């Protein structure tokens, strides 16, 4: 049987960073991903990565405060302290690995301003920072000689008597099922954006790791905290980076007014994302938009700046909406972008299941709380990817592999796959079910939500679950059967969708991204706590966890 001390699932930035760290820490490490590592969704991070560098006169505590305020005081402050303290080293490490960060006039790393932060501490490579980091991390993965299972799709975690033993996985190219034995597992599978339609997220972002952990008994925390990004392109819903506003772009309504002055008079367009998205949605609802959109105006930035620092998003505007941002404002609207919630972990990445770690967007160390600051996600992946890799490798020492029958677990998965393939071809296709789920989510668990809309989403998901139980797989072949993979992913998405809706319904206050029109105020007395969803007999069971506060007392949040 294939056997590794540490098995990392997912090969984006968090996963590769974890694998490299675990390998360097002496563990026999492998990484497994349903796509080739460089196809991972970390690519899509555009604007940059935050770090407070001492030699620039910055202070990690300022970064921590901005992050905590951005989180609407729901982030755990011990975890945030770790992230912000580690940021400088993590950034310089990436530079040493070869990232081609933009420089200042002295040849040192240059910065740009980003939302919700009082000083410019976002380091960047044009407007494709995520891609630049991801490809360099892949270079380091090649150098590390970590075994990489590419285009392998994990179908289940093997856990017996509370101990993790490995995974079963479908080798997509051949259609063969395998068991891989591992002492510890790190989930780094990214977010779950495709539960929403539209979303900025890539088609592969289907909540796989969250669902695997949830079904194995782990808790998903803060799942109601879904980030709607303020600038997603009309139509396709593709992301246009916050870097545009960081470089000085304006948001305007249909009459050309910079409406943000009424919502965030100090920070204007660079308030926190939840604040800006709510402002846009309020304007659109009041009839001050055009076709459900307001405008991102870059025309005053000049061609030279746009070509040097925003060239990729300019191309996206031209390719997908026929609008050249050098010449005219781009129609944009809030769009689902990121989930702050995820698999609850401690600051070393350990989940509630011994031996199972998580890092990156699928995890919730709790550094983003109710709202993530732009450019903190890349930082999160690298800092906590490395920590989880190190700790997972340490945890392997002195423990044995779990003894299980390879034939048995593979046969179990074979039966499950065969059942899917043998279903009659008369039910709804997975595509139609996913579309209905996504539209319900965006309609009902939106920038603004209330008990009635969330309940409607829950009813929809229940119906969709019924339809999913007879979803056919049209492609009966084994070779590269993506039809089968998509059907399995949809099951993962439906599991996670429930936890989002139930948690949103439970939080009867407005905090961060959970803006409840029926409970418009933040309520620290009753709701300064996390909501954790665990799998129950019939849907998610909810419980609470306290928020860790070290030295920043919750206060009114104004930008």
């Amino acid at each position, binding site marked *: 049987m294939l056997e590794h001390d540490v098995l990392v699932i997912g090969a984006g930035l968090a996963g590769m960073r974890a694998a490299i760290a675990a390998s360097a820490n002496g563990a026999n490490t492998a990484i497994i991903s349903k*796509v*080739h590592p*460089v*196809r*991972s*969704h970390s*690519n*899509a991070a555009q604007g940059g990565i935050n770090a407070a560098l001492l*030699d620039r006169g910055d202070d990690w505590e300022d970064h921590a405060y901005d992050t905590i305020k951005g989180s609407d005081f729901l982030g755990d402050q011990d975890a945030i302290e770790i992230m912000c303290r580690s940021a400088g080293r993590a950034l*310089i490490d990436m*530079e*040493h*690995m*070869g990232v*081609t*960060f*933009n*420089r*200042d*006039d*002295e*040849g*040192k790393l*240059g910065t740009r301003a980003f939302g919700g932060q009082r000083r410019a501490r976002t380091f960047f*490579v*044009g407007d*494709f920072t995520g*891609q*630049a980091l991801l*490809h360099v991390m892949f*270079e380091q993965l*090649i*150098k590390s000689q970590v075994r990489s299972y590419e285009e392998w799709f994990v179908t289940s975690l093997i856990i017996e008597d509370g101990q993790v033993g490995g995974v079963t996985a479908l080798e997509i*190219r051949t259609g063969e099922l395998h068991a891989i034995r591992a002492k510890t597992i790190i989930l780094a599978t990214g977010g779950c954006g495709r539960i929403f339609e539209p979303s900025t997220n*890539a*088609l592969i972002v289907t909540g796989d790791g969250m669902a695997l952990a949830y079904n194995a008994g782990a808790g998903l925390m803060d799942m109601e905290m879904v980030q709607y990004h303020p600038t997603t392109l009309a*139509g*396709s819903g*593709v*992301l246009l980076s916050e870097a545009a506003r960081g470089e000085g772009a304006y948001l305007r309504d249909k009459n050309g007014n910079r409406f943000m002055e009424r919502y965030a008079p100090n920070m204007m367009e660079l308030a926190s994302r939840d604040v800006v998205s709510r402002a846009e949605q309020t304007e659109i609802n009041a009839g001050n938009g055009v076709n459900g959109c307001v405008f991102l105006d870059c025309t005053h930035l000049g061609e030279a700046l746009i070509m040097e620092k925003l060239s*990729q998003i300019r*191309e*996206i505007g031209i*390719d*997908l*909406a*026929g609008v050249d941002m050098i010449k005219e404002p781009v129609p944009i609207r809030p769009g689902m972008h990121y989930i702050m919630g995820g698999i609850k972990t401690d600051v070393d990445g350990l989940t509630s299941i011994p031996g199972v770690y998580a890092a990156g967007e699928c995890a919730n160390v709790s550094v983003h709380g109710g709202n993530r600051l732009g450019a903190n996600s890349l930082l999160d992946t690298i800092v906590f990817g490395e920590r989880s890799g190190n700790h997972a490798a340490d945890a392997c020492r002195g423990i044995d592999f779990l003894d299980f029958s390879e034939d048995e677990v593979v046969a179990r998965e074979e039966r499950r796959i065969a059942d899917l393939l043998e279903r009659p071809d008369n039910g709804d*296709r997975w*595509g*139609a079910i996913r579309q209905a789920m996504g539209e319900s989510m965006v309609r009902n668990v939106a920038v603004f939500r209330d008990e009635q809309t969330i309940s409607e989403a829950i009813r929809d998901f229940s119906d969709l679950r019924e339809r999913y139980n007879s979803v056919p*797989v*049209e*492609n009966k*072949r*084994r*070779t*590269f*059967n*993506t*039809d089968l993979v998509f059907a399995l992913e949809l099951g993962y998405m439906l599991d996670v969708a429930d936890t989002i809706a139930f948690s949103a319904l439970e939080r009867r206050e407005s905090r961060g991204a959970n803006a409840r029109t029926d409970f418009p105020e933040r309520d620290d007395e009753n709701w300064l706590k996390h909501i954790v969803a665990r799998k129950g007999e019939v849907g998610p069971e909810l419980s609470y966890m306290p928020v860790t506060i070290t030295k920043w007392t919750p206060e009114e949040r104004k930008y």
Partner: protein
Amino acid sequence: MDVTIKIRRYDPEAEQPGSYWESFDVSVADNATVLDALIKIREEMDGTLTLRCSCRSAICGSCAMRINGHAGLACKTALALAIDDNNSVTIEPAGVMRVIKDLAVDFELFWDKIRAVEPYLQPSGAEPEGEYIASNESMLHLSGVTACIMCGACVSDCTVLEVDPTFLGPAALAKAYRFTADPRDGNREGVSRERLRNLSEATGMWDCTRCNECVQACPKGVAPMDRIMGLREQALQAGFTNNNGARHTGAFTESVGHSGRLDELRLPIKSVGGVTNVAAMISYAPVGWRALTHGKMPPIRHKNVENVENVRRLFRKLEPELAGTQIGKNSPFG
């Protein structure tokens, strides 16, 4: 917009595997991309259609394929611009790489070549405490190359790889250039001597025929061929001249600079280091014989063009730029 998508398909598990064409009539929004149409087919019409795609915004590099015969990203190609007069577009898998199923090809050849150039920064000496100091211009120049998303469009349409799979190819060579041009890579002066030495070998930088297909195919403006030319310049400057490619360039320049035209008889001989390279001379024999019997043998006595002085004057003018390169050393005025 109603369009017809003609797809070249392949099913390895069919009773008689082979590629075949299948057409789909789809109705899509006027601003739809080729990928939007393919996804619609996959989700609503034929679940067996197989392709890779993910980000929909030209950053993940999954959806490179041949659209109307040329490689490109399906997500970056507007359908309205791709269709012909009959509202039809043809879609085929990327070239050079083996087809697995439908539009999904085997990238192993692609990654083997990337791995072959040791694709990670190799600085000399201890790392600085903080960041390396480098000019913004140098980083912007590199970012133009690291913008490569490894989609394989250049490899698909490379006319050398099509006939010689041992060639490193445009993606791997552009990747290599990303390091040789990095002031942080190589020795203290930022010269990546080991890399340039290795890339000067057969199957490396000198095997590109400058057909420009990779520049056309690249959806990210990386212009791999231009980077390969950059590698050649760096290699010559670093003194890696003892190879066929460098000698070929030198002999070419020497001939034109001296006589105003190419000495087709001596060029191949000089490229391999002269008549003393017996193995090469023997390998030339069949070609030479065919040229001779078909009346295509270049004249033994090479003649100057008329007014050759004008050509020589041009070369003299260029001499400062050529100085220090192999071209400079071999020049008739060097």
